[in-house]
């Protein structure tokens, strides 16, 4: 054979399937004729299997015991606090990430957020500078399946990398996003509704700590020129009217209180309570925005139909139901939504409902039955 022999590195890459097709074919051909390389390959293979077998046993022994997540969380919090002293969090920090993650963890969430925020179907008669205030009065699910989501994601990837809130207008935050640990008395004093803070929850959960999140205000000023560019790049025929340019929408979110409970096996359950956020919007022409959004060409037909059929836009908080992960349930006589979370090691869920202008949520390693028990203990 005229082709020169291969070194162990090439043979290793050959075994690992890491060679380019051409080189792989050449090496394969060479092996047919070269006993020396065949023996070398056999040696590499033996070493590989020897090391892998021992490593596998070793890793198995190491991973046999459970990791103590509860203890790790405590130590994480200490580290977090000292890290925060060195470099305080910005608005772009984990909270905004989490809110996106929470909202749906898919591009569909961006679309839905816009659709909900800008869609006020039933209010359009008022004079142009009249302000209208909306509060959440119900929670509803919107059904999506994996095909719908990938259709939307594809459109965003191919059509417009610029589907970012910054390209629709200007967003300003004030207040909010500050959290601190408070006593039950302080928490009660901070809200104007009756806070429910039992010391224990069914199933052996004990109250651990209470956080207060300060009130926040978000203003969004629409830039129709930029928005229309994005809509056009997404293939929309329907654009926003110019007179909407510079209109400001605002969301006020009142003080919220979260109580953390620790239960068996270091499981933690959180109870969230707060007044419904308020949406303050110019009362006219907003249906033009809704129509433009509903005309987005990549919207799956079933989603478009569901969105268009919601006639109480301004008071409905939409929760995407991806592949049956969320469903509408009855919580002590009022409608609510249960979201089952998947992807982690343990089962987890979140139950949200609204009564008398107060939104409450329970989340943790719970199924619907347990979540309803907690809800019953609170209402």
């Amino acid at each position, binding site marked *: 054979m005229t082709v020169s022999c291969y070194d*162990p*590195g090439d043979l290793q890459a050959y075994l690992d399937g890491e060679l380019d097709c051409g080189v792989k074919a050449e090496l394969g051909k060479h092996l047919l004729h070269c006993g020396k390389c065949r023996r070398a390959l056999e040696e590499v293979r033996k070493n590989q299997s020897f090391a892998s077998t021992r490593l596998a046993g070793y890793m198995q022994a190491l991973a046999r015991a459970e990791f103590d997540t509860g203890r790790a*969380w405590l130590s994480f919090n200490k580290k977090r606090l000292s890290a925060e002293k060195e470099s305080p969090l910005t608005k772009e920090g984990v909270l905004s990430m989490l809110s996106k*993650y929470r909202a749906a963890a898919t591009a569909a969430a961006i679309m839905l957020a816009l659709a909900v*925020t800008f869609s006020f179907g039933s209010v359009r008669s008022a004079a142009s500078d009249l302000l209208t205030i909306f509060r959440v009065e119900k929670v509803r699910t919107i059904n999506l399946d994996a095909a719908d989501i990938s259709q939307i994601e594809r459109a965003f990837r191919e059509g417009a990398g610029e589907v970012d809130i910054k390209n629709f207008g200007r967003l300003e935050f004030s207040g909010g996003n500050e959290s601190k640990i408070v006593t039950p008395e302080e928490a009660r004093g901070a809200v104007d509704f009756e806070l429910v803070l039992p010391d224990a929850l069914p199933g052996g959960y004990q109250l651990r700590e209470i956080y207060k999140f300060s009130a926040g205000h978000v203003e969004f000023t629409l830039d129709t020129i930029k928005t229309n560019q994005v809509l056009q790049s997404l293939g929309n025929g329907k654009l926003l009217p110019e007179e909407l340019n510079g209109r400001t929408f605002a969301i006020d979110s009142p003080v919220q209180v979260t109580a953390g409970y620790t239960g068996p096996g270091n499981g933690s359950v959180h109870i969230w309570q707060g007044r419904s956020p308020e949406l303050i919007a110019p009362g006219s022409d907003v249906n033009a925005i809704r129509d433009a959004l509903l005309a987005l060409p990549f919207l799956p037909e079933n989603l478009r139909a569901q969105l268009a059929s919601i006639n109480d836009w301004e008071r409905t908080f939409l929760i995407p139901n991806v592949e049956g992960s969320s469903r509408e349930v009855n919580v002590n006589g009022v409608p609510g939504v249960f979201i089952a979370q998947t992807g982690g090691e343990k089962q987890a869920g979140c139950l949200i409902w609204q009564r008398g202008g107060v939104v409450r949520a329970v989340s943790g390693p719970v199924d619907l039955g347990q979540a309803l028990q907690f809800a019953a203990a609170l209402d």
Partner: protein
Amino acid sequence: MPTTTGQAAGQTGFRELFDRYYPVICRQLTCLLGSRAAAEDVAQETFIKLYQSPPREPSNLGGWLSRVAANLAYNHLRSEKSRRRREFGAGRPLAGREAGPEEELLRGEEVALTRQVLEFLPERDRACLLLKFSGMNYAEIARVAGIRENSVGTVLARARARFKREYSRIKGSDDGVLL
């Protein structure tokens, strides 16, 4: 509206993310680092990173955490090299060290020998071996370990040969008695 409500849910949700992903990341890191204690340290660092500079696109959080953990793990492997030098002298096995909970798990001749051999290997060999074992391809190993992609095969072949040689040598010399 979904923004604010989602945000509020998010504020309570970090603990939940932690509960869900911490064991997953620890298991991955154990494979990368070959030590539970080191895995837990690096897992902590990973979540601090998540807390301070989360990904812009959160749809694949598991994948993001896993990548960040791998990068931090390699930094750890690098810094551990100097630590091991200080504590044990270059290449000396763990003999004489007090048995902690981790050692408790590592009873059994084969497992104990594997640990000794891993301690003995040069740092780059050891890192590539563990990274490969954790399921990375050559491109990823090259990026994390800071070597050229076309040297990965060579480093791996050599590391595995050394592993086998050292394992047999230690097994022969002290008949596998660790402590």
